């Protein structure tokens, strides 16, 4: 016998159920962002004030993590030399999904003051997808924090899809990596 007062909700399709679960997951994900700090360049100096009592990153649920497996954000702080980029790509591929990339400073955007160097790349988003750029040389701590808040907003609005893009355009990214780096893996006496 069916109650007249409460009618059962219409049966949701699988896609809708998945979407609902995804939104719940997004809530948790944006409130607990763990960073892997790949301190590649000088912008890393902005992180200590961001973490300690001046700006207190922990109140947003953020914190540093030791390994890429545990982390959500790959934090690229500063210029990327060719050698670092190889390791960065390797690390990025080891992270668990969903994963986000935040790049600090002007060097990952257009090369910055190293735009004509033979050893430093010019544009990070050609090799891995970047969700948030924080411009400045170097960006001050408020803008770094603002970048993280922007990322949270993007996750909420389902715009932080860099990791999906990486899957969709995997061949394009790989081709770019190979033009600039040759093979990503290095085989020589120091790695055998």
């Amino acid at each position: 016998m069916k109650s007249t007062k409460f009618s059962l909700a219409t049966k949701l399709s699988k896609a809708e159920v998945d979407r609902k679960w995804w939104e719940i997951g997004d809530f948790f994900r944006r409130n607990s962002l763990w960073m892997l700090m790949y301190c590649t360049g000088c912008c890393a100096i902005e992180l200590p004030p961001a973490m300690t009592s001046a700006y207190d990153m922990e109140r947003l649920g953020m914190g540093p993590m030791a390994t890429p497996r545990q982390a959500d954000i790959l934090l690229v702080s500063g210029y990327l030399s060719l050698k670092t980029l190889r390791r960065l790509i390797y690390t990025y591929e080891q992270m668990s999904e969903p994963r986000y990339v935040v790049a600090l400073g002007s060097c990952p955007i257009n090369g910055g003051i190293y735009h004509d160097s033979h050893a430093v790349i010019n544009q990070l988003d050609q090799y891995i997808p970047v969700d948030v750029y924080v411009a400045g040389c170097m960006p001050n701590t408020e803008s770094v924090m603002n970048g993280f808040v922007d990322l949270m907003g993007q996750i909420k609005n389902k715009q932080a899809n860099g990791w999906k893009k990486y899957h969709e355009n995997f061949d394009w990214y790989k081709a770019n990596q190979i033009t600039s780096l040759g093979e990503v893996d290095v085989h020589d006496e120091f790695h055998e």
Partner: protein
Amino acid sequence: MTNSMSNVEFVKALIIQHVRPHVIDIIDQHQIGFEVDQNEIHLLLLALKNAGWIQMSYLSAIDWPGENKFEVVYVLFNWDKPVYVQLRTKIDRTNPVIDSIIQIYPGAKYYERECHEFFGIAFPGNPDHHKQLILEQWDDIPPLRKDFDPKAYSDRKFPQRTYTEDYSLSNSESTKVEKRKLRKQRAESLKGGKKQ
């Protein structure tokens, strides 16, 4: 003071005893440089090592494209008589070859590999001198040669960001003046009290 100066003199005497250097630079009481011939390098290194210059501090090269020469530089240090000794020699740039010194200074192994990587100088006698060390999978001419153009390399290998708009400000001065005026007006408008 005199003692330290005599160290430099000691080195000078030691070198002159063996060869006749092209140039002798006494930079200060702790540094002295000699420019010698390519075939005298090993003899001098051996002599200096026996005299106490046991530390091979650095080995590198300088590119002189005008002369078509590479200048290979050896820097040695003695812990008892504090003097840096620079030995310099110029070698042919089109076919740069100089014998390895790892029999005298085994520590020079990685300096020679680095030098080969950045200048393309061959060091016969060092079994690994052609292997890659710092530049991983380099595919161009050695990057520290003067005829290498990093900008061209960067443009060729790394995608550049293209900007659709130009964000630089034109006639910035006038805007500054206008802004200052606006700010003054706003400050005036916020002033409380009796208006005049």
